[in-house]
């Protein structure tokens, strides 16, 4: 027993306040989920599954269907991952397996800077540099080559699913790169040496032992990137084209869950309208919560195993 009970009481109070702070963090997360869910209650209960499958978004008639926004979110994220996964994991391989430590430090800092640029600046650049570039040079060229494919149909507007996906790719690459790099670093060198000693080339070492060892963590990195892509708001809002519609063409304008909320929330005039927007947020939040929790577990598994 402590000889100075007063000090031990302070200790207990100190520990209790730390625990409370920890619980506070958990409470904030629970609060976010609870508030958004309760605000959306009306739209979700009245709309039911129709809220997810409906394609009309008419605030005046109070008819709310989330499908076009959900579709836009999924398509842009898919395009983003298609581009970002090979580039992001490739860069991580460079950083952890090939670069000297000085080069790796410099490139790592640059990648982190890319992650730190505010998304509204990405949006600005996307709107005034990337979109015109795509409209005037890339999209016509793609159409000339593959114009018959429905995913490249329609007039080249510069804004749309494809542009948003490309911009998202640039934004999620740093996430995928830095998490993958951590995961690859957690692969013990003894694994690499074992493979080298059997006469494997560096590529065979990476493909045959490093990747399998790190697999679940790499999946986690990709899923974290996906989480960022799904929830990204400003940049997408600025280049998606903001048309509430479903199109097969990547050149067509569309909408995403986050973009609808961003554009319409401040002027939502009725409780029903507000509730429908909160419903979109619930869909978004639910998806990202599950993805993030799962991804963290996967990453932790690799880092714990090493």
């Amino acid at each position, binding site marked *: 027993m402590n000889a100075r009970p007063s000090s031990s009481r302070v200790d207990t109070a100190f520990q209790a306040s730390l625990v409370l702070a920890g619980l506070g963090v958990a409470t904030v997360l629970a609060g976010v989920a609870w508030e958004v869910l309760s605000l959306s209650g009306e739209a979700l209960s009245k709309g039911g599954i129709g809220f997810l499958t409906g394609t009309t978004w008419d605030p005046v008639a109070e008819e709310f269907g989330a499908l076009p926004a959900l579709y836009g979110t999924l398509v842009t994220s898919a395009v983003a991952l298609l581009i970002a996964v090979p580039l992001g994991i490739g860069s991580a391989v460079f950083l952890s397996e090939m670069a000297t430590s000085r080069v790796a430090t410099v490139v790592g800092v640059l990648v982190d800077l890319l992650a730190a640029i505010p998304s509204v600046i990405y949006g600005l650049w996307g709107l005034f540099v990337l979109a015109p570039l795509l409209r005037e040079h890339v999209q016509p060229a793609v159409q000339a080559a593959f114009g018959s494919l429905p995913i490249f149909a329609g007039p080249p507007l510069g804004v749309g699913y494809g542009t948003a996906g490309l911009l998202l790719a640039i934004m999620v690459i740093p996430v995928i790169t830095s998490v993958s790099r951590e995961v690859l670093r957690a692969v013990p060198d003894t*694994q690499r040496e074992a493979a*080298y000693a059997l006469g494997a080339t560096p590529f065979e070492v990476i493909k045959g032992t490093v990747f*399998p060892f790190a697999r679940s963590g790499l999946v986690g990195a990709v899923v974290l990137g996906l989480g960022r892509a799904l929830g990204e708001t400003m940049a997408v809002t600025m280049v998606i084209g903001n048309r509430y519609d479903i199109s097969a063409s990547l050149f067509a304008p569309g909408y995403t869950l986050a973009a609808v909320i961003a554009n319409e929330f401040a002027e939502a005039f009725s409780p029903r309208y507000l509730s429908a927007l909160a419903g979109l947020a619930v869909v978004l939040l639910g998806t990202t919560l599950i993805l993030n929790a799962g991804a963290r577990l996967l990453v932790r598994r690799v880092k714990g195993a090493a």
Partner: protein
Amino acid sequence: MSLASILVPLPDRSPPPARRVVTAPPAAQDEPRVAKMVVDSLSAYYGRNAVLRNVSLPFVERTVTAIIGPSGCGKSTLVRCMNRMHEIIPGTSVTGRVLLDGRDVYGGHLDPIELRRRVGMVFQKPNPFPTMTVRDNVLAGWRLTGTKPPDADAVVEDALRRAALWDEVKDRLKAPGASLSGGQAQRLCIARALAVQPDVLLMDEPCSALDPIATARIEELIHELAPSVTIVIVTHNMQQAARVSENTAFLYMGELVEFGATAGLFTRPADPRTEDYITGRFG
């Protein structure tokens, strides 16, 4: 056996036909023996820091050579230079020659990835591939390099038998490589190295992470393998060196202090430093 009787094939000699395989029955000690590998004036560096200085040593074919010395003396670096594993660490360099069948492995005639198939390696800590099954671990040398042995089952069984592991794992070849005990895992690593039919097996303190029983098992295995493979074993355990090896080299601070028949080196060391080390005065 005296050192003078070791035939060191010279590099300009056409090695494979000249090499006479001498299976060494204990009685035939005076017959000339062929050096499978020769380290010649080898220095190795981390950056500008020399960890090995001008080491020259022969490794007699189909015998066990032990390399002993206090930690940090360069024994691991020495074997890592012999299959060019030293150079996978950035900033390292090597000067001098390492001959395999009389030809310098740094000379450019042999890609390191081929060299490493002929000169296998077993590490301090057992490092089976956890994502592969026992069977796939044995075949890893083939699989990783994208090749297939003519008869995979036979290769697996032969390698595991030579590593004295077959009876213990023959019923769980599909189990994950990480499911074996430490001693078994190390023998699996030996089987993995043997499966690609190396001429030389480098063992870098293969027992340092194992308990005494598992250690005894590995030492027994080294004896069994000696007639078919040239073995180089790094150990900080002098008793182990005395038990398993025919020749012993004593390294101290990156330099070769003494090399000779194990029995002689341990009973009548020529150099006072060797004597200090084997009598436990330092290290």
